[in-house]
């Protein structure tokens, strides 16, 4: 006997099959990863055949690869065939007003000082009141685009770049993070659906932070983002991704790839504020974030600077790196990573010194609270030709409470005897003395924790673009709420 449920199930399956095989208009692909899914994604994006082939080669490599297990992260096995790799962007029902939004979420928005209209956008409220806001953001975006176009900067979704600027995409895509680089990057290469493309022409200083515009669009960022930024000779760009507002996402698995290319005398500053859902206070739920970010300083005197503030995700696996190929090139990595409750972060950087007189600077601030586990993992490698290479690494950990952990795993490999490599590390606890002192002066406990932690992270926070630094500071306080007392 067939029950109603089973019938319904069959119907649903059939619909998927139907939509999947013959109907390109369908908005979702069934669960799982296979060549058909990739063809589906590629067709949806109207991609040229070279890109489809590129994706397929990634997929074939991926099937032969294994998930890396060398990190200090503990999580249950992920069933990669149980995930959706393509779905319509906004399937969720729109809410009527902010009254219907989870009050806890609203409270956090308030603490971050996010304007009401932006709150509505973020929470997915039906734009009855927010029509202006949506209209505004579109018009603002248009204004930005015009301004950027005047100086020849290309800034668009990567799928658009594939159509409009195939020569650039083809030349640089996968040139920093090769298709078979690692398990997650390879999966991303096969399945990426979204992301940004930036090209700064020769000698152009990008007239604005590419943050503001991106932030307006941030509500729609995808699960497998692919970002490619090229700074041509003598150009400069500052790019900010992410959002301080807490974001919940049905997709637990995230695997982004970011590639940066800096040619002669070019500079790229890439800042991230990441606040994905970290799971609840018992460690239930939360995003798994496996990210591959790498920048190539290809040209002489080029510079790439990564700044990250990582407060979200249940699992963070992320090592923004610099390949210092051009002589006199400079790589920087400034990081704040917070692991509270049951969050786990294994993050750091790789600085590969290839060119002469290359310099790198690493400042990592890890904060562990609750049962959080925070690992700094960093590689400094100096190749034989890298005459006069210099690295400075500073790696500080702050512990709050007695059930959390901080771990530092530096790898240093120098094959040039003339290289200078410095590594400093420290571990400290927020002391009762500090907290009492602040409270005696009238500063409530949670604000005191936030103040002390922000002091600890100051060197990194100073690297953030001004308008975001303030929000990021508040975010750090919010992320650590309830961690003391």
């Amino acid at each position: 006997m067939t029950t109603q449920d089973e019938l319904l199930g069959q119907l649903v399956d059939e619909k998927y099959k139907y939509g999947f095989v013959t109907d390109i208009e369908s908005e979702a692909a069934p669960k799982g990863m296979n060549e058909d899914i990739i063809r589906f994604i590629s067709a949806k994006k109207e991609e040229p055949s070279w890109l489809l082939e590129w994706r397929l080669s990634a997929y074939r490599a991926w099937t032969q690869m294994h998930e890396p297990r060398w990190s200090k992260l503990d999580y249950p096995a992920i069933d990669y065939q149980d995930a959706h790799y393509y779905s319509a962007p906004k399937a969720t029902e729109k809410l009527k007003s902010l009254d219907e939004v989870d009050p806890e979420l609203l409270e956090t928005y308030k603490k971050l000082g996010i304007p009401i209209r932006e709150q509505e956008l973020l929470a997915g409220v039906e734009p009855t009141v927010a029509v202006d806001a949506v209209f505004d953001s579109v018009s603002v975006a248009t204004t930005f685009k015009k301004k950027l176009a005047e100086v020849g900067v290309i800034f668009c979704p990567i799928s658009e770049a594939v159509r409009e600027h195939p020569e650039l995409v083809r030349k640089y895509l996968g040139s920093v993070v090769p298709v078979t680089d690692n398990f997650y990057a390879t999966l991303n290469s096969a399945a990426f659906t979204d992301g940004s493309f930036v090209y700064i022409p020769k000698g152009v200083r990008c007239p604005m932070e590419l943050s503001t515009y991106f932030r307006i669009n941030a509500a729609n960022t995808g699960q497998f983002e692919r970002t490619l930024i090229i700074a041509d000779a003598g150009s400069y760009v500052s790019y900010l991704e992410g959002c301080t507002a807490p974001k919940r996402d049905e997709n637990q698995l995230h695997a982004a790839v970011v590639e940066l290319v800096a040619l002669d005398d070019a500079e790229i500053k890439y800042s991230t504020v990441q606040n994905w859902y970290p799971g609840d206070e018992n460690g239930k739920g939360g995003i798994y974030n496996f990210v591959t970010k790498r920048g190539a300083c290809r040209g002489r005197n080029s510079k790439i600077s990564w700044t990250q503030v990582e407060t979200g995700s249940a699992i963070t696996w992320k090592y923004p790196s610099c390949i210092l190929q051009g002589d006199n090139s400079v790589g920087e990595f400034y990081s704040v990573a917070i692991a509270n409750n049951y969050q786990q972060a294994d993050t750091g950087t790789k600085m590969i010194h290839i060119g002469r007189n290359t310099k790198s600077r690493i400042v990592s601030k890890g904060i562990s609270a609750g049962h959080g586990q925070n690992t700094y993992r960093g590689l400094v490698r100096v190749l034989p030709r890298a005459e006069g290479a210099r690295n400075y690494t500073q790696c500080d950990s702050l512990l709050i409470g007695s059930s959390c952990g901080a771990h530092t795993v530096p790898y240093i490999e120098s094959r040039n005897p003339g290289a200078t490599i410095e590594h400093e590390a420290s571990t400290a606890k927020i002391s009762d003395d500090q907290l009492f002192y602040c409270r005696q002066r009238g500063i409530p406990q949670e604000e005191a924790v936030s103040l002390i932690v922000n002091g600890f992270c100051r060197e990194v926070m100073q690297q953030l673009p001004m308008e975001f630094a303030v929000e990021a500071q508040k975010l750090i306080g919010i992320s650590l709420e309830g961690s003391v007392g």
Partner: protein
Amino acid sequence: MLEIKNLFASAGDRQILKDLSLTVPTGEVHAIMGPNGAGKSTLSYILAGRDGYEVTGGEVLLDGEDILSLAPEDRAAKGMFLGFQYPVEIPGVPTTTFLRMALNAVRKARGERELDAIEFLRLLKTKTKLLGVTEDMLKRALNVGFSGGEKKRNEVLQMAILEPRLAVLDETDSGLDIDALRIVAEGCNALRSPERSMLIITHYQRLLNYIVPDRIHVLAQGAIQRSGGKELALELEEKGYAEFGGEAA
């Protein structure tokens, strides 16, 4: 006005304060002197609400209101200020930032308007002159790398900005050379006010040459053993604390 009535307190198994009573009327400056281990610092911590001490009896009233059940920050909002013997370092937090945050936290708790950066800097300028606090000091992280004298000047500066109803100064003279002592004392004297009670805790008579108190109390064995006028300090300097069961001064 501070009124301590029959206060009993312990830390762990140790009874530290035993039936201590003391009143500091508004507008007066009192000093507490006593041998090491008499419970002087404990008293200051209990007044400010530090964890780790258990009050087993008695009351502490600030302007008539019992403050013992209040959190430290709420006591601060009521006008309680403790000048620390060992001011705490907070790396990465500029002194100015800390000062403004403290003042605004207290103002907020009192339902007053918070000061913006410009208003605060204006206020800060008027307060720093007297204490010889330099701009460089204000930019540096709170107490980090400060000399002993700078730390204590910073404490007095905080008192000047927070304008407390009750200021308890715990061994403010410790670790100061004579010049620094004079500056700190002048700062304190400038804050004597008919609106304020001050309680100066010290082991030595030296500080009281500069800040002349209205009354002096001897704290030993967990209670006030004797009270008197400013001349009591000289007597203690001469005879020590032996008669109160403590070691010589």
